[in-house]
């Protein structure tokens, strides 16, 4: 009873002490704002055992560390090659040493626990043999029992000693592993070598100026025949004329001018694009009238296109949340305490423990799509499972975007990730011979994609856009085909660009960016992407494949696709469909003082006919 009382007081003191230390973290600064204690934490996913943390333990990451470190020559391993290609500097040998030490300490604890269990069993047997529970007190006074108790106590002390060393080590290794990038896809590795050697592989890539250092690895392009026409029309967009200035409150549909319902207003200084650098946060803006209607029209068009695809059982349209807890953000490969690159939302409560930290990523972000699956175990028969959504994404760098995004989960592993892992684990490490095999596989995959896309461009068979029964490598191709299916009608030049390893995000294994031609910039701008995420997110957020027969934990593999960035594509649509208005419609204002015809002011936007039914006339 006394012991219980002491324990209660101790735990109360402990709680009060830790609360004090947290409160200390949240003291006010000179402006009266309190600092956020969460920012001082190293991870929101890995919570140190037996310690009060500002983050609740809601997820336990399940990283396959053996796959990373179980190699005899870490400097010639795939992991090191991955880090080099991504320009990440890390002392891998040191980390591997820590990992092995951690594993040996864990094994030692395991052994000691077994020994302790054996001793407990021996004590139980002793008690049983000496008359059972009734005479337990007497039995425990015997020499045999005392010896066993002493042994058990020694083991306990040993375990505690090891734990003192193990817990900080676990923290170091686990957090370091959580920050490691995703496994590099062989094609991304091939791209890395391709760029390194400045070797122009004209068999795969279309490069306009091969010697240009900035040349991008263009894998495929379509609608490129429209380029000449658009380049020819760029004279219309000189000077101050661009998508921000040319739109009026009317559009032309098949040569007929259709005015907006409000166009009787004399809104002469009404801007259709209102940049707000100060009123709203960086890169956010207002889009008014025709422009906003066009964005809405495009959203409806793309969603309609998707609805027309063959609907599979696990092909779901969802509407998710915009704000997320730190664990989810960290699980998706972003740093939760980086308030320069995240929109962090903080609610200060009355006490430090009630401070709430959320992250505004948007209802169409990867986090929003992943939210549907966190800590779930999905039966194999439900794969591949695709969710898609339309909504907003927010980031300080890009501002507020309207996008349509997809996420596909599958139980299948990519054949271009771990194929040569076992051979690279030998003392020799990844030999030149196997490296060549790796690069060849990566190159072959890129060639296969190219050929498949060529075939689809000639004969668009929508049945090939479905995911059922396909490997994860084929699902990537399906997504690329989806771009051809959705954009072909626009007649705007589109290209698929392979992203080099050093441009990949931590969570990406392989990425193809989709770019469209923006006439006013005379360059391509990104409108979407297809990205292999593999099991990077699912291993951090416990998204498992429910396989009864499998003894090991298996995580779902993911492919992410952003079909359209509506904010950017609307600009492209506007600039690509400009026409010089007819002379009859010109009024005196448009004839300059010299009497010449001022085309810049008489540009009209012609809505492509296939969009008419989606436009709010």
């Amino acid at each position, binding site marked *: 009873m006394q012991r219980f009382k002491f324990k209660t007081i101790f735990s109360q003191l402990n709680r009060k002490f830790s609360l004090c230390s947290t409160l200390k973290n949240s003291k006010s600064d000179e402006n009266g704002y309190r600092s956020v204690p969460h920012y001082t934490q190293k991870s929101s996913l890995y919570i140190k055992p037996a310690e009060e943390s500002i983050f*609740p333990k809601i997820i336990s990451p399940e990283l396959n560390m053996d796959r990373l470190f179980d190699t005899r020559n870490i400097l010639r391993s795939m992991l090191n090659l991955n880090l080099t290609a991504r320009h990440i500097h890390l002392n891998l040998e040191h980390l591997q040493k820590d990992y092995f030490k951690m594993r040996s300490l864990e094994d030692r604890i395991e052994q000691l626990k077994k020994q302790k269990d054996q001793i407990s069993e021996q004590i139980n047997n002793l008690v049983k043999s000496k008359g059972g529970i009734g005479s337990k007190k007497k039995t425990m006074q015997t020499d045999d029992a005392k010896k066993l108790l002493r042994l058990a106590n020694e083991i306990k002390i040993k375990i505690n000693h090891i734990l003192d060393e193990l817990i900080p080590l676990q923290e170091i290794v686990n957090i370091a592993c959580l920050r490691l990038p995703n496994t590099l896809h062989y094609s991304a590795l091939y791209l890395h070598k391709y760029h390194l050697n400045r070797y122009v592989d004209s068999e795969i890539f279309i490069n306009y100026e091969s010697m240009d250092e900035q040349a991008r690895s263009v894998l495929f392009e379509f609608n490129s025949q429209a380029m000449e026409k658009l380049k020819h029309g760029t004279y219309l967009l000189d000077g101050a004329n661009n998508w921000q200035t040319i739109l009026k409150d009317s559009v032309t549909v098949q040569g007929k001018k259709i005015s*907006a*319902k*409000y166009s009787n*207003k*004399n*809104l002469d200084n009404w801007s259709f694009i*209102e940049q*707000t650098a*100060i*009123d*709203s*946060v960086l890169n*956010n*803006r*207002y*889009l*008014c*009238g025709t*422009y*906003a*209607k066009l964005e*809405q029209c495009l959203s*409806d068009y793309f969603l309609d296109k998707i609805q027309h695809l063959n609907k599979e059982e696990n092909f*779901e*349209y*969802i*509407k*998710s*949340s*915009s*704000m*997320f*807890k730190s*664990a*989810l953000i960290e699980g998706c490969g972003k740093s939760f305490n980086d*308030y*320069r690159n995240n*929109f*962090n*939302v*903080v*609610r200060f409560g009355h006490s430090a423990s009630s401070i709430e930290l*959320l992250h*505004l990523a948007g*209802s169409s972000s990867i986090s929003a799509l992943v*939210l*549907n699956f*966190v*800590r779930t175990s999905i039966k194999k028969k439900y794969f591949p499972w695709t969710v898609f*959504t*339309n*909504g*907003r994404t*927010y980031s*300080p760098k890009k501002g*507020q975007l*309207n996008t349509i995004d997809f996420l596909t989960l599958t139980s299948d592993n990519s054949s271009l990730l771990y194929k040569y892992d076992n051979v690279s684990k030998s003392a020799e490490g990844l030999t030149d011979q196997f490296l060549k095999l790796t690069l060849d596989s990566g190159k072959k995959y890129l060639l296969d994609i190219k050929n498949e896309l060529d075939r689809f461009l000639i004969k668009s068979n929508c049945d090939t856009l479905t995911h059922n029964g396909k490997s994860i490598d084929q699902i990537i191709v399906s997504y690329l085909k989806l771009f051809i299916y959705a954009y072909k009608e626009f007649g705007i030049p589109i290209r698929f660009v392979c992203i080099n390893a050093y441009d990949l995000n931590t969570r990406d294994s392989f990425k193809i960016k989709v770019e469209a031609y923006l006439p006013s910039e005379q360059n391509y701008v990104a409108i979407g992407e297809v990205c292999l995420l593999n099991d990077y997110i699912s291993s951090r957020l416990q998204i498992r494949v429910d396989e009864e027969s499998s003894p090991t934990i298996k995580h779902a593999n993911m492919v992410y696709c952003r079909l359209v960035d509506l904010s950017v594509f609307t600009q492209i649509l506007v600039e690509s469909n400009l026409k010089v208005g007819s002379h009859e419609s010109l009024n005196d204002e448009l004839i300059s003082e010299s009497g010449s015809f001022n085309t810049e002011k008489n540009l009209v936007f012609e809505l492509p006919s296939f969009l008419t039914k989606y436009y*709010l*006339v």
Partner: protein
Amino acid sequence: MFKIFSFGTRNFSKCALRYQISKERVELIEKYLKKIRIFDEIDLFPADIDWGYVLNPTNLTSIDENIRTRKSNGDIIGLHRLNDDLKEALKTGDQHYIETIIEAMYHKAVQLPNISDPSSPIGAEENAECVMNVGEKKGRSPTVDQIAKMYGWLREDHISLYSTQRSYILKKELAELENALVRYTLNYLNDKGFILVSVPDILHHSIIESCGFATKGDRNQVYKLDFMNEYGKYCLSGTSEMSLAGLLKNRILNHDELPLKLCAVSRCLRAEVSGSEREGKLYRLHEFTKVEMFVLTLGDSKISSLMLENIKEYQTELFSDLGIHFRVLNMPTQELGSPAYKKYDIEAWMPGNQFYGEISSTSNCHSYQSRRLHIKSSRDKTDLSEKQSYVHTLNGTACAVPRMLTAIVESNWDMV
């Protein structure tokens, strides 16, 4: 600052009423306020308070009565006390002290609520006057939560662990219904001549405050960003009314450009407190999609009141076709909030939980917001000699998606 509050125990009734506010005093206050930067970094002058009205002792009783009937935080007596202190300070000529008092007066004055329409019932929510009933009350149906669970249309279990409280994921048909509702509403509003605006969801706090929403204090419902080490500078928009009003700040419109009707679809993010279990899972949320109407009219009470009736008609027309039963309430003074002069709420019958739930509201804010955001109109905006007057602003919910989903699904549910 200490000096300002040092007269706290003085008996106001003995001194304040003796003075009439002079034109010179009003000019002095306005002159000083122009120097004070209330909102840093943003091109927004302090609100144009009608000092002649608020400091006139003959208006004290009516303003105080208005504050009490609205149960507002405004402190007109405190403001008049500060005015007395200003008079004393002017005698001493201590510039710093004068500026401090004027700034304190400003902060008190902006907290005063709008005047109330005489036709608004006085008192609390239960005094709301029902002005219209549409459709018939339906019998009990399963709740939207039950229906959605049955068809896998809604995921909310454990989601709050990784997102905000009461967060949810709409799936399949329910997600498609959200899209359909937005499209239906936008089509209707386009026909009525509304200009669609795509608005930012992250705004400078001054825009939100100028619309009459508090960003500080315990009861505020605004999420604040900790962005670039500047906590609270930017906030999340709780309704696109804030963004639309912000778009028009410092604008002068020609009389013939009015009424200017704007609409926007946006994600509303509110740090709202949880409601009762009875309300269900799609009722009081931290985040939802909403289509909002925002209208500017000439600064004439008759014109803006007529526009309020028009917006109410748009709303009833929009909701009538959706097979739901609803009632329109003329909201009493305590339910108006600070900015509204008059407000109608529309409550739909939720057959699942058998209660009337608010699905929409529309308010006439008179010149409350335009005085704060400096939105004016004149006969010819290019002619600066023309008289400029503050416009009246009105707002109305065209479609608050989750509550509409609840009302539609439950009202149109047929157990065959």
